């Protein structure tokens, strides 16, 4: 049992931590969670060195931020809300740049954004060459625009003259109004010439029928994810303001139900349009990132990770606050409904890079390098992912069906480690290191061929462990699903309460979390320069690995009603211990980045060049 020595290591290391660590397992200052006394979690307000400050924002919250910028621009430049929105979108939401440019040349900025027509010069080419509608070609359009909207009654207003985003022209009014008798209009897109055809136009007076406008806007939004939607006339650069899009897409309140399919498609497009603008705003702001999970519309704000320099010392793992994968994720099990809030996976992602999961403790640049290396070498390493191996003693085939790496051959009873195939009895002892790669072979290599073999062996050592933790995490979750079913059954047949059979869930979650940490530590160790610091890193890695394997093994022991109380006690103890070992790895690695302790064997952005290159 190596727990004692591990604990000693741990306490001797404690001065490395900045005091945010909970040192006492039985300390009572910890917050109690749903598990009663079984598990304690540290108080939420204590920020660990491996955590970043961030806020998660709903789409509405981001819309409020946008509205603040828009209103600010309205008051400074004296423009309407929709115009301000178009100007800001065109200037990538940079208010200062917009104000500066606008002060310099308001017309140019406004025309470039598609908010107004060019004041001088020839009007945009009229697309209605064959049309008998003469009014649409009138050149004095700016002075008479309000009444120029074909098909609209005199009371309706031109879209861009509306002061706010709100719904100004009830659709029913538009639909009810009749066309002027003298206008003989043919829509130049669908060639419809029906006498009561409803039409719409932007300030440019390029009129087309309402249905064509709707289909065009939907197509732009759906197929091109476009929020800047230009007039349909050739060469016309005017952009449809927000409320024009809304009035075109949304049915007026109380309007008769038309084509149901078309209407629901239009409503979906309007929802998507609003999301696209929020995405654009978020994409233009370094402090914000849109949640990458499918159909999620939340945003995370993390100003401390906005600069590239900060990413050399922090791993900004954030969560948008949502779980699951949208409305289709309806498979919620009974215990989940009972209040654990586990409706699917938490939306956890990295704020600093495109990795959509937790890659602590490794910084983005190194993670990226490692993933690229793995992708490049995927063929070489494919065999590792296999679920079966041969017993090193009797060569019979052994299948791995749980997360535990302690294997026992059914035939010869040989106990060995799935990862290194070495004897299990020596694992966890000071002289045996399953996690450490013996660099000597590479140093001794003289010729190119043995050098490249040594380099491949080195890579495979790390990749093997990386892939194994990923696989084991998945397998233990699978195995847990079976166990959970059994425990639920036991509740019915025995006197156990629901709370008493929940200890496994927490333990499996912890194992999964720790295996994720372990997985990434192998990518870090692959690139860490040889030396004392790397050895300390690998000591912590080894201790966490040993603790996780012990707990993993325990989780696979047979469960019967009369064994539950003792099992519960040891699983709970081990879970708390594993949690602590994980904290140590995360904290120490994060502190190492802050203190500049880590040195690499390759060039990494934001770090000094390596003294010697191993690879």
């Amino acid at each position: 049992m190596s727990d004692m020595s591990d604990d000693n290591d741990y306490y001797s290391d404690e001065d490395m931590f900045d005091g945010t660590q909970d040192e006492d397992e039985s300390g009572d200052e910890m917050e109690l969670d749903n598990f009663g006394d079984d598990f304690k979690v540290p108080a939420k307000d204590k920020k660990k060195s491996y955590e970043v400050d961030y806020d998660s924002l709903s789409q509405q919250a981001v819309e409020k931020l946008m509205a603040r910028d828009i209103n600010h621009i309205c008051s400074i430049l004296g423009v309407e809300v929709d115009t301000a929105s178009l100007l800001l979108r065109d200037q990538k939401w940079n208010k200062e740049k917009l104000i500066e440019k606008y002060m310099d040349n308001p017309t140019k900025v406004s025309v470039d954004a598609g908010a107004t027509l060019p004041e001088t010069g020839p009007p945009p080419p009229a697309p209605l060459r064959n049309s008998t509608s003469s009014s649409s070609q009138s050149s004095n359009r700016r002075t008479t625009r309000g009444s120029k909207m074909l098909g609209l009654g005199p009371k309706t207003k031109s879209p861009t003259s509306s002061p706010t985003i709100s719904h100004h022209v009830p659709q029913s009014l538009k639909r009810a109004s009749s066309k002027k008798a003298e206008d003989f209009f043919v829509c130049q897109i669908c060639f419809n010439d029906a006498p009561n055809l409803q039409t719409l136009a932007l300030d440019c007076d390029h009129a087309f029928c309402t249905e064509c406008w709707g289909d065009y806007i939907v197509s732009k939004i759906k197929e091109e994810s476009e929020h800047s939607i230009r007039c349909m006339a050739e060469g016309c650069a005017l952009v449809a303001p927000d409320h024009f899009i809304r009035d075109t897409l949304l049915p007026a309140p109380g309007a008769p139900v038309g084509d149901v399919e078309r209407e629901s498609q239009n409503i979906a497009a309007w929802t998507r349009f609003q999301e696209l603008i929020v995405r654009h705003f978020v994409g233009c702001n370094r402090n914000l990132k849109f949640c990458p999970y499918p159909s999620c519309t939340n945003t995370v704000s993390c100003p401390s990770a906005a600069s590239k320099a900060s990413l050399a010392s922090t791993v900004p793992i954030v969560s948008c606050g949502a779980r699951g994968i949208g409305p289709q994720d309806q498979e919620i099990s009974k215990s989940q409904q009972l209040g654990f809030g586990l409706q699917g996976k938490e939306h956890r992602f990295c704020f600093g890079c495109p990795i959509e999961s937790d890659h602590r403790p490794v910084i983005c640049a190194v993670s990226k390098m490692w993933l690229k290396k793995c992708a490049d070498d995927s063929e070489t390493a494919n065999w590792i992912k296999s679920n079966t191996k041969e017993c090193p003693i009797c060569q019979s085939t052994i299948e791995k069906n749980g997360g535990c790496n302690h294997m026992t051959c059914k035939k010869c009873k040989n106990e060995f480690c799935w990862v290194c195939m070495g004897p299990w009895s020596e694992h966890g002892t000071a002289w045996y290191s399953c996690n450490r790669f013996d660099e000597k072979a590479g140093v001794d290599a003289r010729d190119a061929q043995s050098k490249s073999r040594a380099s491949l062996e080195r890579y495979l050592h790390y990749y093997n462990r990386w892939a194994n933790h990923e696989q084991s995490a998945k397998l233990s979750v699978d195995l847990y699903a079976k166990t959970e079913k059994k425990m639920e059954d036991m509740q019915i047949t025995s006197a156990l309460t629901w709370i008493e059979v929940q200890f496994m869930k927490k333990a499996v979650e912890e194992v999964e979390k720790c295996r994720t940490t372990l997985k990434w530590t192998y990518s870090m160790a692959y690139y860490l320069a040889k030396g004392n610091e790397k050895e300390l890193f690998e000591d912590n890695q080894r201790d966490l690995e040993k603790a996780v394997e012990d707990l993993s093994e325990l989780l696979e022991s047979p469960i019967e009603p009369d064994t539950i109380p003792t099992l519960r006690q040891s699983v709970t103890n081990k879970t708390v211990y594993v949690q602590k070992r994980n904290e140590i790895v995360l904290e120490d690695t994060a502190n190492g980045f802050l203190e500049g302790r880590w040195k690499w064997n390759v060039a990494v952005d934001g770090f000094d060049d390596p003294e010697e290159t191993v690879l």
Partner: protein
Amino acid sequence: MDARLRRVNKEIADCKNDKSSGIRIDLVDESPFHLKGSFPGPQDTPYEGGYFEVDIVIPESYPFQPVKMKFITKIYHPNVSSASGAICLDILKDAWSPVLTLKSTLISLQSLLCSPEPSDPQDAEVAKHYMTSKSSFEDTARYWTQIYAGGPGPKEKSDGKDEVAIAGLERAHVDRFEALGFQRGKVIDALRRLNYRGPNVPKIPDDRVVEELLK
């Protein structure tokens, strides 16, 4: 009736009625959404005298999304891929407007032949040729017009240049049929006549090439 179908039918009919433009639109098969456009090469250009065919595919959301066009006839032009016939033209992408029609788009293609845009090339090799030596570029363009688009002029051009390359054929294709026992010159002639370029529309099966070679 489906709005897209109504519009396309009207466009085809309008084009048929207009004899002055020289633009033609024909059905390829039963579908009104897969068409073949054609037009004469513009005067005072290396394409004069040639007749150019364009493959037209009308997407689901036409006319709100641009029509897809590419040259069937091999053409030597900076904005057209000499291998695939793909076209680089703004109105086929961002600058598309739903008021544009098949005919107006084909007219735009025709005027693209008058005024190449080598700064925004589709075929970098051809664009480089155009920039470095315009007259030599025009020689090749004229030669391609002759052999692929039925243009006038002497069919022989044996001034020592690589025949396969100047015909824009792929050596592998020529080699393959030569290996069947046909004369190299004959293979080049036949592939030219067939407008052969591997997987292009319409796809030409090997049997068809051999048939041509046996003529």
